[in-house]
């Protein structure tokens, strides 16, 4: 049976891990990416996600050197995102050891890029990240450029459109919940997961063990966790044990080097 995945999400800025709230507030430093990746590998998390949050604003792609160093030490899957807008950048990141790339802004600005990338590298390699936020009129809208550019797209329709463009997975991130630790947007997760044929990764809002269970039971194939791991005493082992004892199918073994 396929296991539900627990994925720590690491935001990288100037080569360091950081974590903020709602994308722009209260950035705190959270350590060295490579040594932190090793720690989480030993915890036996299922994947790692790195997002270079300076990449889009600075007009460059996520840095490969951190990825290369991670791939020397950690024998588990990882996904890299941040500022990716060309096939060459994807090829470089995969050659650095990444298994998948996460594309967000350039999917909004050039949807044809997703199809192009999927046909070159395979659907399974392309994760489309969808950030969305509630607008003044009450609608939810897809937002790109690290929370700066509001689009006209509805997140559910956009997820289906990205699936049609051959995205291998969809990652949904509610900007309103990012870093709040108040729980995932379970309604949106359920609506999208119900219609998608590709796996859905739920992101942003985890604060308690119950939140993790809620998102997975709503239909997410995987959850990302950031603040809860960095700033609370909930370790991946605790999350996994809680999920397993509450009937969610998760992996029980330890990671590498154990």
């Amino acid at each position, binding site marked *: *049976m*396929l*296991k*539900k*995945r627990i994925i720590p999400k690491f935001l990288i800025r100037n080569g360091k891990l950081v974590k903020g709230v709602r994308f722009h507030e209260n950035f705190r430093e959270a350590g060295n990416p490579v040594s932190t990746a090793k720690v989480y*590998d030993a915890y*036996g998390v*299922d*994947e790692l996600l790195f997002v270079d949050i300076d990449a889009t604003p600075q007009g460059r792609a996520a840095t490969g050197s951190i990825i*290369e160093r991670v*791939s*020397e030490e950690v*024998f*588990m*899957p990882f996904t890299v995102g941040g500022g990716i807008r060309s096939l060459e950048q994807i090829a470089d990141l*995969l*050659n*650095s*050891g*990444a*298994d*998948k790339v996460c594309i967000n802004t350039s999917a909004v600005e050039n949807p044809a890029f997703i199809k192009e990338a999927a*046909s*070159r*590298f*395979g*659907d*399974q*390699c392309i994760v489309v990240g969808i950030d969305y936020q509630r607008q003044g009129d009450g609608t939810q809208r897809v937002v790109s450029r690290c929370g700066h550019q509001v689009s006209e797209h509805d997140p559910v329709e956009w997820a289906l459109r990205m699936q049609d463009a051959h995205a*291998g*997975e969809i990652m949904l991130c509610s900007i309103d919940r990012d870093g709040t630790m108040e729980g995932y947007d379970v309604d949106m997760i359920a609506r999208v997961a119900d219609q*998608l*044929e*590709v*796996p*859905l990764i739920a992101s942003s809002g985890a604060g308690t063990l119950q939140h993790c269970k809620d998102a997975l039971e709503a*239909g997410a*194939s*995987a959850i990302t966790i950031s603040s809860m791991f960095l700033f609370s005493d909930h370790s991946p082992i605790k999350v996994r044990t809680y999920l397993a004892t509450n009937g969610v199918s998760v*992996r*029980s*073994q*330890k*990671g*590498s*080097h*154990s």
Partner: protein
Amino acid sequence: MIAIVEYGMGNVRSLRNAFEYIGEDVIVTADPGELEDADRIVLPGVGAFGDAMAAIAERGLEPVLQRQVLELKKPVLGVCLGMQLIARSSVEHGEHRGLGWIDAEILRLEVPRPLKVPHVGWNAISFDPADPLFDGIKAGEANFYFVHSFHMVCHHRADLIATANYGIDVTAVVRSGNITATQFHPEKSQDNGLTLLRNWVESTPC
């Protein structure tokens, strides 16, 4: 020495790192001479089947691979798309001929809802615990990392060494003589993956 075939398709760095981690000499090469000198060959691969076969053809690699694997019976390990390439054919984006080292075909993965495709993540495999390829890997907790939308259907039951359940039985490991291949990524499967790679390196083909 282990030679990982470099043909521009996929994550060869992780495979190389994994073999180095378990203490093996490993090179990444498309050079026929180096492939001839190697004791073992690894055929990696991520991406589309047709593109991969075209990339192998473009580099003129098929004759040297056929000779090393089929005539000289050198141990070879196919990983992920590298496993699919050793089948006779694939229907991924059109009909394609494969290397044909295993009597099998590659079909689209069709699973009952609400299961998703691609099959992404950690799935447990079933295998014969007496098989030395799985020495030190606990049955029941043998999770490996899969990521694929097409799968191999073997024509000979004897070639099928391990399966994963995903609505249907998905081919996870195949073996025929000196040829072994995994649909999952051992280099991304933490301890279980490293153990399997070590077992493969220590195995003598029958």
